């Protein structure tokens, strides 16, 4: 297993319980995985009026009809049992007065179907799953080991090469099967709600090993994040009556969504804020303002406690007396390593799950609280199938050369005496993606991004790691991660340039409409020395033919 967030641990648990020995590589301690940052909750149609069918429909509609409906059916069917299982593992969920699991409402859902644990659902799930893994003896967790290469030959994966952060040692791990669950890649963008470790490593490693990346151009932006840090201000703020204003004091959402105004869906509000700023109606720091002052101290401090904490602690702003500057930030990657509903990639023995993977259940736009669910449902499926494959196959053939080649590449980077620091290259990558591959896309900007990424790639060839220590060298891992982000950024741009329609999170100014006749298909990208090679895969439709998406 590469990755120990919810997806990686759930896959591991399944493989262990099927009687296999499992090794988990994780660059962070499992409990420090980004899954722990999820606040809102996890969807399961457990309410009295709700049904699996409704959950499927909402998800397909939310996806702008790009999700594979067979995969969505599995997701929603398994949701109830998954949540109950997590409860039995010890998750401390919020309860209704009668003791049953409490539910809250979330955007895009027809019923209240989001099960939650205060404002720390991800942490609660991560704790319980780690507790469950801690009970097992057939597992070894390699904490703070970075996978730096996936070894494949003859269409099959043979293992992983990894770097031990604490000692700088590089080692090979031969494996019969490998599950990649390395989580988000938000750090490709300058503004993101994701953690610093969210650098899309697994996607890049699988891509280089010959796996398909799917639908990478679909990048979800959350409308309200703090401008400097990208820390998320939840929808709850607008739910409680928060109002967005531009620098002229105008409540601009009245123009974009006359009926629901500030409560419009994520993508609509993100586009509105971006437009206001682009057309010169933003504040000098390039933001719009979210006002809560009119709600009164008591309401703000009791109902929006967590937001108050974030603003005071991380931005030095008191939302009781001042407006909160906000701007949309990258939030979620719908795309990822292509898998089928069994978690299989196109390489034998290679599986993927969680945010690093793309089954696809989110299509062109993910609904809130569906991705925690995906990590667990498809983590389990990938783990079970990886175990089955391992049981039937011969040992992975990892040669000493596999390890030494990876090691040599690493050392070449490490021992270089001069060049550009990774931090500067990373900043350039992030600002390019932010400026040119953001919420609205034009062919000119995308072409410009492609050119700039090409330049950054050339400069990356002389990237200089100043830190020569073997002990916990973050300068070195920064440089490695930068290479991964660069690969994924190129695929995002290529997919976005090719897709001449607007669907879900992908909005082209020159093609503002969805085009089902030509584009109801997944973008598939394969690595080549000249850059990504694109092909397309039809979407699986079972019950719901595409309709216009109106809320």
């Amino acid at each position: 297993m590469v990755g120990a967030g919810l997806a990686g641990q759930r896959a591991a648990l399944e493989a262990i319980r099927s009687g296999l020995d499992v090794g988990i590589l994780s660059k962070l301690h499992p409990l420090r995985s980004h899954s722990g940052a999820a606040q809102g909750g996890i969807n399961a149609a457990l309410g009295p009026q709700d049904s699996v069918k409704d959950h499927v429909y909402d998800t397909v509609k939310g996806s702008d009809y790009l999700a594979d409906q067979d995969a969505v059916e599995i997701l929603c069917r398994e949701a109830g049992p998954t949540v109950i299982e997590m409860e039995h593992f010890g998750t401390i969920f919020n309860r209704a007065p009668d003791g049953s699991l409490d539910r809250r409402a979330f955007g895009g859902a027809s019923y209240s179907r989001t099960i939650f644990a205060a404002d720390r659902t991800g942490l609660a799930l991560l704790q319980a799953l780690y507790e469950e893994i801690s009970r097992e003896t057939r597992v070894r967790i390699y904490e703070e080991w970075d996978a730096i290469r996936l070894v494949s030959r003859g269409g099959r994966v043979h293992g992983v090469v990894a770097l031990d952060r604490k000692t700088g040692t590089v080692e090979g791990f031969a494996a019969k099967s490998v599950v990649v669950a390395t989580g988000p890649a938000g750090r490709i963008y300058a503004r993101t709600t994701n953690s610093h470790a969210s650098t899309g490593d697994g996607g890049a490693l699988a891509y280089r090993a010959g796996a398909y990346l799917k639908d990478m151009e679909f990048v979800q932006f959350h409308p309200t994040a703090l401008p400097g840090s990208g820390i998320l201000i939840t929808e709850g703020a607008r739910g409680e009556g928060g109002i967005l204003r531009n620098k002229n004091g105008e409540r601009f959402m009245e123009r974009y969504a006359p009926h629901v105004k500030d409560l419009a869906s994520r993508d609509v509000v993100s586009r509105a804020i971006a437009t206001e700023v682009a057309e010169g109606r933003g504040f000098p720091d390039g933001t719009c303002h979210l006002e809560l002052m009119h709600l009164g101290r008591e309401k703000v401090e009791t109902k929006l406690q967590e937001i108050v904490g974030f603003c005071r602690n991380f931005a030095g702003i008191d939302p009781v007396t001042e407006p909160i500057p906000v701007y949309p930030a990258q939030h979620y990657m719908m795309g990822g390593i292509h898998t089928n509903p069994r978690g299989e990639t196109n390489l034998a023995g290679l599986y993927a799950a969680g945010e690093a993977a793309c089954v696809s259940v989110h299509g062109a736009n993910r609904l809130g609280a569906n991705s925690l669910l995906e990590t667990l449902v498809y983590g389990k499926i990938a783990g079970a199938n990886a175990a089955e494959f391992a049981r039937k196959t011969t040992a992975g053939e990892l040669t000493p050369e596999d390890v030494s080649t990876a090691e040599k590449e690493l050392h070449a980077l490490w021992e270089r005496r001069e060049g550009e620091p990774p931090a500067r290259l990373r900043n350039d990558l992030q600002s390019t993606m932010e400026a040119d591959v953001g919420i609205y896309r034009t062919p000119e900007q995308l072409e410009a991004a492609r050119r700039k990424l090409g330049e950054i790639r050339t400069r990356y060839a002389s990237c200089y790691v100043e830190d020569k220590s073997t002990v916990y060298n973050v300068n070195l891992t920064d440089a490695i991660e930068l290479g991964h982000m660069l690969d994924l950024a190129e695929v995002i741009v290529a997919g976005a340039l090719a897709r001449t329609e607007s669907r879900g999170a992908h909005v082209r100014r020159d093609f503002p409409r969805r085009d089902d006749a030509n584009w109801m298909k997944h973008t598939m990208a394969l690595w080549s020395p000249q850059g990504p090679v694109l092909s397309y895969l039809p979407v699986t439709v079972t019950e719901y033919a595409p309709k216009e998406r109106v809320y």
Partner: protein
Amino acid sequence: MPTIPFEVFRGSPGQTRFDTFSLDIPEHTPILTALLKIRDEIDPTLTLRYSCRQAICGSCAMRINGKSRLACLTPVGPEFRARGKLRIEPMANQPVLRDLVVDQGPFWQRYHSIRPYLVPDPQHPLPVGKESPMTPEQVAQFQETPRCIACASCYSACPAIASDGDFLGPMALAKLFRFVVDPRDGAFHERLLGVQNQSLWLCLRCNLCVESCPKDVRPAERIHDLKWMANQELGALERGSRHAIKFASNIREGGLLNEMKLARETLGLVGMLGQIPKGIELARHGKSIRKHPPIQGREELDAIYRELDRPEDLQHRPRVPGQGVKGPTQQPSKAGGAA
């Protein structure tokens, strides 16, 4: 924007130093942001652990002007104003690997030693296909401990860890509490038995863990809760709890501490023999251990004890029995709580 000097601990054991970096940054800047700025713009060889930058992953605990804190949650301003500089050091009680990164092995070992997972209760299996029942009272027991992000700030701040390698430490004990109050867990008795002899009574009650916890888990209070529960469930089996109980009854009797009696009741006669040298030493330093004369104002003392004995106070954090769930084997008795 003030210019803020950072004195940062650098190097590995055997070769350490402090480097000074100056940054012009707004006062609300989190210390983590400042350190990352140093890394990106001044010295890329500075190393530290970090990930979420929003106080949820628990990676970035370190000592800031001597206090164990999350770097991402602590703004530079207040500390700078109080001390004129920011001294940044790795956490204490854990071996330094390099710069601000420590070896967390011992911390995690303690975590794993408490059996941090639900132990099934054969008499009360969890319901098939639905959630386990839980009353609001039972849910209320989980108020603080699920907030823990395992950042080890408490572990770094704890003087008992520093002085006694056997002490489980605030985080592991708070985690233990989380399982002890869980109605789904079947090892209530064994869990308390496991810590009663050792760890519980090594806590010095200095409250530094409470002060350093970024998530308000208040570990010292959880340890106190565990002591109470252990006394209720197991009785005063060993020195620590006997001492606490006898201390309370001893003062109730005479109004002043009768050390001789306390030692006899806590240690037993044989145990006391071992304390003779200490007694002689005490006497030599003029410390009297004779019986005290009766005190004045007994009524006030009695009134205090009456208050303490109020049933609602005795029910301080009992384990709440519920439907299909095993409760404590005894009702809270009248024995005084931890003194």
